């Protein structure tokens, strides 16, 4: 029986990806005036697809005591945007995009934390027998 639902694990992965995303955006903003710096981003969709693919990978059990695969670690990749030039010094950080992405990521993070809290609340509701 699974007391703690796997949803919490998925949400946790979403949180860490969001934290990594936050890091790339802050790095891009900090390096907005660095000559030759190329902007970086987290490829969230590919990461999600990889994670979904990994969950489909189930262990082959011949005995009920065999242990199933643990959830493989979620591995979002950071890609570097090499091909565009935005400024004369070779830097391609687009400040407006970075700011918009920062706001978006913040909301996403808040939404996910909210959902985790909700999960825990329903769990504690069950534990206390609905009282």
């Amino acid at each position, binding site marked *: 029986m699974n007391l703690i639902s796997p949803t919490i694990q998925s949400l946790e992965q979403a949180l860490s990806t*969001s*934290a990594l995303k*936050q890091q790339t955006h*802050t790095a891009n903003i900090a390096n907005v005036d660095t000559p030759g710096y190329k902007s970086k981003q987290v490829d969230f969709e590919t990461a999600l697809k990889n994670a979904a693919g990994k969950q489909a990978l189930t262990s082959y059990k011949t005995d009920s005591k065999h242990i199933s695969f643990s959830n493989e670690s979620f591995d979002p990749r*950071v890609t*570097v945007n090499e091909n565009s030039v935005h400024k004369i010094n070779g830097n391609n950080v687009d400040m407006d995009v970075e*700011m918009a992405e920062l*706001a978006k990521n913040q909301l996403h993070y808040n939404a996910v934390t909210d959902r*985790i809290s909700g999960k825990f609340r329903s769990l504690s509701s069950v534990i206390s027998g609905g009282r």
Partner: protein
Amino acid sequence: MTLFNSFNISASGLTANRLRMDVVSANIANAETTRARMVDGEWTPYRRKTVELTQSGVSPFEQKLQTMMGNGNKGISGVSVSRIKEDNGPLTLNYDPSHPDADDNGYVQLPNVDPIKEMVDLMSATRSYEANVTALNASKSMFMKALEIGK
């Protein structure tokens, strides 16, 4: 650590931009300084200083290597000032025979500081500073939210 790294990155941006502002202030303050440095027993005027920014921590080679090895995350780092460069552009000549540093023909060499360039630099540094503050606040509120999980 993933969680607090974004704070450090934003802080590095704040430090670098504050230094840029310091350098701009020094340039404006010394816009008329004719005796900045003694060279071969003669005073030379102040020269405009500029800041050179680089991505901190990682060399371009290391960055490429880590990306190729699939550890792309390692390339995320802040900014640092690699050096403060002197602008070797031509000094301005001004005709002012009464100036104590005027030469025999009455010309005095003044620093190559252009107030307009300095103001533009100052604005750019201020805006970058503000952007880093915004990013820092965003990270802070996010992690404050994370502390509320389970409450």
